[in-house]
């Protein structure tokens, strides 16, 4: 096949090439972070601390997937805008729900 | 146009409405005038060409921004400012509980029921006078309506008091008012609550303090006796 990159013959060798190697590295991080999440639940931490830790880890994992597996790190501005703007809008919307649903409901429960 | 205003603060709503009319009417008149003049004056005629202006000059930009400023300050901020004050006065100033009459309103498909604290001044005791469809309040005393719903969302609407408030299942909402003119007024349900929505009518009876006290005594007696039996 013309134009095709000369592919390393064995699978193991191929996995050590640039892109594949990078993906496996990210995979390692994701597994480590997942294990850390499960471990954190066993430590008997306070509810709020645990929630903070888990949300932070989940965000890191999600970012790793988005940046490396979905290649957002190397994307053009248009694509970034297409996905980042909705996430911002979504955050604003959910925050807008808090006063009425969370705060008011809690006040009513008191 | 407005229904009779029988409340202490209702006039603020009427004033707000007329303010909004005063602010928006000139804009509407200008739009219609320009439309009319243009259609008459700038009709296509033989030998006349439209002017070739795109409105991207600094002058047009200045005009646009000036217009935005006028609209923002003259209409938006003006109206919102007055409204915020009226809203605060009508909805955000709960009367002191010891000086106000508290009435619990329970909404259900398709009727209103009302509960007074009764002779002991406590709710949820056996001597609470409860009424269906009709509620009595005195003039000159703030009233706190505590609204609950048994099924769907209803909205407790007192057009003559210029207020309304939704009653939601699972939570309590509050409505404050103070009547000034004795009379019988209608209570409406303003939120679609089912097929009988249109018939979810109640009566608000505003009485002078003397009449009201007399009425309350009778009710307290009636429900007190009911308990004794």
């Amino acid at each position, binding site marked *: 096949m013309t134009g095709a990159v000369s592919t390393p013959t064995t699978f193991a060798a191929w996995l050590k090439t640039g892109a594949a190697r990078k993906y496996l590295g990210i995979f390692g991080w994701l597994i480590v972070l997942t294990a850390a999440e499960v471990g954190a639940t066993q430590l008997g931490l306070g509810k709020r601390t645990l929630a903070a830790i888990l949300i932070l880890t989940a965000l890191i994992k999600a970012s790793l997937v988005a940046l490396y597996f979905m290649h957002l790190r190397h994307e053009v501005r248009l694509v970034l805008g297409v996905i980042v703007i909705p996430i911002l809008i979504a955050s604003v919307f959910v925050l807008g*729900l808090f*006063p009425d649903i969370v705060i008011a409901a809690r006040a009513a429960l008191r | 146009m407005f229904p009779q205003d029988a409340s202490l603060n209702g006039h603020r709503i009427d004033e707000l409405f007329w303010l909004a009319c005063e602010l*928006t009417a000139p804009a509407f008149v200008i739009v219609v005038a320009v439309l009319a003049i243009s259609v008459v004056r700038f009709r296509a005629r033989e030998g006349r060409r439209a002017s070739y202006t795109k409105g991207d000059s600094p002058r047009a930009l200045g005009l646009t921004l000036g217009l935005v400023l006028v609209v*923002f300050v003259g209409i938006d901020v003006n*109206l919102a400012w007055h409204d915020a004050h009226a809203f605060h006065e009508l909805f955000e100033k709960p009367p002191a509980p010891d000086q106000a009459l508290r009435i619990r309103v329970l909404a259900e498909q398709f009727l209103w029921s009302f509960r007074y604290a009764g002779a002991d001044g406590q709710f949820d005791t056996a001597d609470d006078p409860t009424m269906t469809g009709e509620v009595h309040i005195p003039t000159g005393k703030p009233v706190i309506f505590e609204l609950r719903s048994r099924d769907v969302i209803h909205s407790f609407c007192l057009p003559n008091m210029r207020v309304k408030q939704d009653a939601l299942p699972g939570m309590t909402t509050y409505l404050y008012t103070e009547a000034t003119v004795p009379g019988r007024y209608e209570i409406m349900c303003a939120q679609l609550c089912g097929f009988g929505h249109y018939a979810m009518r109640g009566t608000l009876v505003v009485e002078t303090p003397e009449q009201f006290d007399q009425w309350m005594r009778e009710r307290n007696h009636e429900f007190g006796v009911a308990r004794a039996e």
Partner: protein
Amino acid sequence: MSEPTSFLRRYVFSTDHKVIGKQYLFTGLFFLLVAGLFAILIRWQIAHPFQPMPVLGHLLSSDSHGVVIPTEYSKLFTMHGSLMVFFAVTPILIGAFGNFIIPLQIGARDMSFPVLNMLSYWVYALGSVAVLSVFFVSGGAASAGWTAYAPLSSSVKITPGFGQTIWIVAIAFSGTSTLLGAINYIATILNERCPGMDLMRMPLTTWGFFYTSILNLLWVPLIAAALFMLVLDRTVGTSFFTAGPLAPRGGGQPLLYQHLFWGFGHPEVYILILPIWGLLGDLLATFSRKPAFGYRATVISMGVIVAVSQVVWGHHMYTAGMNPILGKTFMFLTVSISMPTAIFFFNWLATIWGGAIQLKTPMLFALGVVFVFALGGLTGLFNAVQALDVYIHDTTFVVGHFHYTLAASVFFGMLAGIYFWFPKMFGRALDERLGKVHFAISFLALNGVFAPMMVMGVGGALRRLADPSHYELLRKFSTWNQVAWWSAFALLGGQLVFAYNFVRTLASRPTNVQNPWNATTLEWATSSPPPHENFPAIPVVCRGPYEYSSPAVADRDFIAQNEPALEGASA
């Protein structure tokens, strides 16, 4: 790709955006008629409570002898609203015009995803069948209002019957169709523009569709999520939106549904009006023979509105016991929308000012939009501010307001578009004289229907009342209700003129005039109707969209976008 030859592939399962656009147009017009007839029944009932309605009333149910009973009334206004919004206006404006116009105006052969485009229509068609089927299931049609507030809509104890459930699913279908369309439109506008068609050379109509699609893309999924949860509440028995005694096993939040609904619902009103704003830019310029004034300012203002419209949903919920700070924020954001709107009006009026106005039928309707939208927009301020809104909330004032914006403006805009692009779609023009009659009747009748609503609303008349005369307070409005009824009747009559014109013209011999309005944008640079794949050769754009009365040419008053560069003419 060559043109398909079989009837099925050409007219039914076609991937040609022009055919799909026409499919949307005809289906949408059908629903416009159905939902319009519901409106007639509603007006009759309000004006003559519980009196048998001649002809139409007997179609409702056989045992009520033509009387609109309260259960039927709830179904009528529910189906009127939802059919109009999701099955008539959205398909006609966005489905029909969007499909037909976008590729032509940007010089593309078709949409980015032609097969997906065909799929969007068929998902909508499926939803249409579903939404019509609710009239034939036991319990009848949906009756919780087009807003379908929970728990009225979510509890099967309160609103039993399959009709309500099927209705929710049908709305989700319509939403899915719109969403697929939105993806297609955005991709097409970004990717398929012909050489020279910079974003800032796109006609305003296309800008309108672009912005509308952004809002659809973001907010239709939100309502889809809410609708799915609603269906689960009804079918599985969850209680996401039910609270109090109806939810013994721990309740959800009725207010959450309202937030989700209006989170979508407010962008939705801009979804419906943005194409009209865009279209006005094109039409006013064309028939004033003058460049659209402040093109850049209009584009930016539309963008600002798109941004702000997403964070104002709470102004629909001022009476729901909203958090005070949140309420103030929503109020402030809402009134601030009047600023970009003022820019629109300024630009529209400045476009016709100093023009050489040709009062053709599309122009009449376009000017009509400016009038009714001024009324609708300005009355919006009354609803935007909290205290005043609490008083007029759920009254017919609100109904009047949103009918001036969403019914009158959209209806006129839609008709303006139909009269304007009919020659392009079908190769022959609608009759001008009948069109003018149509406009005159529609203009008077529309105002006759909606202006009384405003007056009565201020007087305390609530909406969705099967019989307003149940309240002593509202009995004095019987004259106004008569005016509204007769106007509604006249409006229907006026549309017969249009229907006659439409059918007669379709049956007439095509003239195939390429550019009957002497317009500049690309859809007029190809034959009428355009061939398969639109252009014999992909056009090259050399200038902005509105070169009318340019001094660069003396013999005519327009320069098309794709004409090769002229000496002395600037882009």
